Structure formats: C-alpha cells, structure tokens
C-alpha cells in the first residue's frame, strides 16, 4: 500500500512527547545541569565542566560500591533463577493447589519494600528476632550488625525471599502454556525427565526467563530500601550498594554535583548492561 506522508501527523505524538518530557527528560536534564556545575550556596552556580565525572570515576569509593553491587546482583541471580525454575517445575498444574500456591507465591511481592526490610531487620535480631535468636542460641556466631558476612547473608536471604516468587510466577506462566501433547510425545519418544526439561520446558521458558533475568538484574542493581532498612549500608561500608552510596553523597553530604554526576554514570551503566543482556539473550534465542 502506498504510504502518505503528512507532517501534521507529528501533532499526534505531541502529547506523548510532552508527557515523556515532563516525567523523564526534564528532570534528567536538571540532574545533568547539577553534574556540570558547582555552587557555594545562595543559588549561585559556576560552570564546572567534567570535573565531577572525573572525580567520581577516579574515586575508590564509587568502584567499591560498584563491585559490591555487581557481586550482589550476580549472587541473587545465581540463586533466584535456578531456585525459581525449580519451584515452578514442582508447582501443581491443576487442582486446588494452584490458587493456593499462586497466592503464597504472590504474598512476598505484595509487601512494601521498606516493610520487607523491617521484617528482616527484626527477624535477624539476636535479642528478639526469630532467626537471630535461634541461630545464636544454637551456638552460631550470627550478628548482622557487626559481622559483614552475616550482613551479606541476611541481605541476600531477604532478596531471595522477596523476589524468587517473581521468577517462579514468570516461569510458571511459561510452563502452563506448554500443550499436553508435548509431554505425551516426550513419553512416547522415551525422553528422560532431564530431556523433557532441557528440550521442552527450558526452550518454552526462554522468553520469560529473559524477562526475569532483566527485571531481577535491574532491580538488584538499583536496590536501596531493603538493605538500607536492615543494615543501613553497614557494618562499615560492607553493604553499601551504589544507590545507598548515591543517597549518602546527595542527602547525607549534600554534594549535589558529584551526586548528579554519579547518577548519570549509574544510569548509563544500567542502560548499557541491560542492553548487553537483552542483545545476548535475544541472539541466543535467534540462533536456536
């Protein structure tokens, strides 16, 4: 069909452009604005060029937060994805168990993030918390307030508890869309349980897994509330992830310039990593 060109059509996209401008682009520009200027108060700003960027990129503190954050994301992905698949595979496909399981799975997702933090903060306390008290009375030297390893274990357990359900629900959705005929054919072909998983279930979950990995990676790379409530980034800086660090610089120290520069760098890193994930996984998909 012949396409007609009419520049008036641009008016059609105007509302969306305005919405995006006000909700994303303009606020982002103010951040850009801060990141290239310095101020000594009184609302007087000086052009500062790329100084803040250089400062952030050269600071050890930034890179340490980054490494901590990457280790955190890698760990929770390594736990939540296989665990989520495993649970989804073992969930009932029909009967009364389905709604029960779905509701149980959805529960952690419905709890506000700071409440999740509070729950685990209390749960892990050695004086009154169920987990902390039990562990210490069993003779384990568990104390997430003083011990960096314990703090890490607590934060990771909390994230696994909070977010594995998301992976489960996504995988479950992928699994129930597989017609019975596939399982019947596999039986007739004499496929083992592993072969059924490898050649039927995994390929069918491919797409939802891509989404799950992307969502969990981005979320965990931006994590703030829960570890902040539980550990406040401590002990020391051991659980200070990028966004906790960012807030410390911006609100704690009120260094708007470096904080703005860090925000931009942070944003670009997430954008880049998400793009890499997406490209890699869609390419793998296309090859198959």
């Amino acid at each position, binding site marked *: 069909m012949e396409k007609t060109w009419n520049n008036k059509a641009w008016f059609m996209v105007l509302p969306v452009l305005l919405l995006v401008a006000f909700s994303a682009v303009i606020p982002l520009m103010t951040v850009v604005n801060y990141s290239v200027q310095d101020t000594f108060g009184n609302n007087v700003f000086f052009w500062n060029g790329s100084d803040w960027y250089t400062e952030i990129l050269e600071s050890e503190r930034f890179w340490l937060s980054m490494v901590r954050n990457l280790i955190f994301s890698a760990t929770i992905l390594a736990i939540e994805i296989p665990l989520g698949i495993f649970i989804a595979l073992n969930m009932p496909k029909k009967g009364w168990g389905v709604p029960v399981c779905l509701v149980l799975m959805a529960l952690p997702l419905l709890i506000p993030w700071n409440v999740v933090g509070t729950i685990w903060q209390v749960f892990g306390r050695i004086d009154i918390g169920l987990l902390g008290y039990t562990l210490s009375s069993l003779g384990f030297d568990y104390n997430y307030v003083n011990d960096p390893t314990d703090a890490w274990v607590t934060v990771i357990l909390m994230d696994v508890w909070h977010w594995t359900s998301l992976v489960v629900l996504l995988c479950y959705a992928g699994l129930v869309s597989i*017609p019975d*005929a*596939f399982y*019947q*054919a596999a*039986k*007739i*072909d*004499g*496929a*083992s349980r592993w*072969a059924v998983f490898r*050649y*039927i279930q995994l*390929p069918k979950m491919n797409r939802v897994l891509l989404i799950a990995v992307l969502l969990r990676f981005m979320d965990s790379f931006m994590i703030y509330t829960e570890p902040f409530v539980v550990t406040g980034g401590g002990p020391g800086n051991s659980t200070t992830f990028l966004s906790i660090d960012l807030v410390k610089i911006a609100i704690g120290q009120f260094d708007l310039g470096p904080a703005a520069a860090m925000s931009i760098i942070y944003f670009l890193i997430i954008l880049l990593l998400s793009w890499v994930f997406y490209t890699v996984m869609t390419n793998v998909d296309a090859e*198959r």
Partner: protein
Amino acid sequence: MARIDVNHVRHSYLPNPRTDADFALREVHHTFEDGGAYALLGPSGCGKTTLLNIISGLLHPSHGQLLFNGKDVTNLSTQERNIAQVFQFPVIYDTMTVYDNLAFPLRNRGVPEADVDRKVCETLEMIDLASWAKKKARGLTADQKQKISLGRGLVRSDVNAILFDEPLTVIDPHMKWVLRSQLKQLHRRFGYTMVYVTHDQTEALTFADQVVVMYDGGIVQIGTPAELFERPRHTFVGYFIGSPGMNVMPVAIDGRTATLGSQRIELPGAPKAGSGAVELGIRPEYVRLGRDGMAVQVSKVEDLGRHKVVRAKLEGRDIAAVIGEDETLPADPKMRFDPVGINIYADSWRVEMEA
C-alpha cells in the same frame, strides 16, 4: 508391528463412575489386525481420542485389557509399549535440528550412534525431508513439522503401531491431500499397523481399509468405506457418513412393502421383525427424480459443481436427492427409491431383509 486386541475396554474420567453416562468409552471390544490401516471416525466427544490414548498407554483404562500380539500390555508404560503417536498439533523439539529431532527417540533408548545415523537418514528419505536435515526444526511449515512428528515414530523400526490423532487438522487443504497419500504409500511399503483418529469422513474413507465409526462412547460399525456407505448398521452412520447424509424416515412395514404416509414403497425383500420404531433409510445418491413415482415439492437445488443436491419435501418430510450435474428437473418431478439403496432400521439398528 503388532495385532492389537482391545478386550472389553471401558474408560471413565471420573473416579467413581456409576451409570453408563459416566463413561467416556462405554465398551469397546475389537481387534486391530497386524498391518491394517484403521480409521476411528466419529463426532467430537465420541471417545475416539480416549480409545487412542488407551492404546498408546497415555491413559489407563478403568476396565478391560489390551493385548499386543496376545501379550497383556494394559499395565505397561507408553515407552514399554513401543508405540508411535502423531498429535493434532505438530510436536517438535524447537531447539533441535530436523536430524536431531528424528534421532531423539533413538538416542533416548541408547541406540549406538552409527545405527542412529543410518535410521535417521533412511527416515529423512521416507518423509522427504533429507535436504532439511541440518535446519532448525522451528523454521519449518506446519506440514513439515507434522512430518517430523511422524518421522520420530517411523525412525524406530520396531514400533508396534503408529497412532494418529487428527494429524491433518492444522495442515493447509492442498497439503492434506499430499500428506494423506504419502501416509498411504508408507503403509503399503512398510505394512505398519496404523490407527487414525479423525472426524473428517473424507480423511477416514481415503486413508483406511477399515473404518471404525464411533458414537457416544461405543463402536457402532466397523467396515470398509463401501460397506459404511451402502449398508450403514446404525442410522447415525447413515447421517454421519455421506454428504448430505442418509435420508431416514419413519415407515410402517407390511411384508415387502413400506408405507410412508399415503405412499407405498416396494422393498427389495421382507425385513425380519425388529423391535422399536421402524425407519427406512436411503442415501440421496439412490433417490431418483423423474416423471413417475411419488409426488414431491422441490424446495431448492444446490449446485455443488460435480453434482446437484435437490432438497424436497415428501409427505411433509425433508428429503435430499443427488442428481447429475447435467441433469435437469422435470416440471413436475416425481420421486422413486432405487431398491438397491434401501435399508430398514428398527430402533436405529439395521435389520436384514429376506430376499
């Protein structure tokens, strides 16, 4: 290859079936001969897929026994029964190549790789996909995928039977014909026992040597396509097979004469006494329209290209007749029944006539 005996098999999907209505399969007792091509024909929900799944072992029958070559296999798993089954929607392993798809059932059974290669190459030739061997299976068309499903059955030379569950549903009409004739060819060359479930009479009649017509959880007639057409044992078979289906009308019988309203119809013989309502069945192909016979009112004529279907009223009842494409109706047509095509039914079941 095997002879399959279905021994008084009943099946219900309910845990505690009480009445006959609770059974999806009321009672089937039948032998599928070794090397035969059978079609299970019937409307949706008549139990034909249930029967097929019982044969393949995907379902365990509530009652009854299943024998392969005289050996009881009722409690054996699908895999142990060594059956191939092709489903309504093509089942292929997306991530594998065509070659690997066909090799899959063999590799699962631990066949040495050299034999796998030989068998797979043979099968690829048989199903005409040799040039696609190295391609990913997901890019294929529906009919090619369905051939792969079939190929995964053929690749195992020792399969007891190949079962088809409405395999051509998602195939384009022109490919249906091609695939069907390829199936027939395979059957002739290799002599597999094949059972083919369908609700399409053309498919059933062209594929099978023996058509098993099922209705409401039971078998109503087993016969060659010609038998089903000429001598339907049950009025359902008359309706279901043929297009349009058989004309069935209530009559009163007196010796060699049937009375329909004010009309008297000569029968080829005297029907044996049967119980229940007596009906006369005649296929539209045996209804003649001409200048003498019973008075009818023609309501419309459908031209189907190859022939015409005349819809008319005889004694106030709808009746269909088939006439040649070039025939024209006389101004005031009269109807006659060709005695060869007349069947008499008592309580819906056919009764024999004494010559």
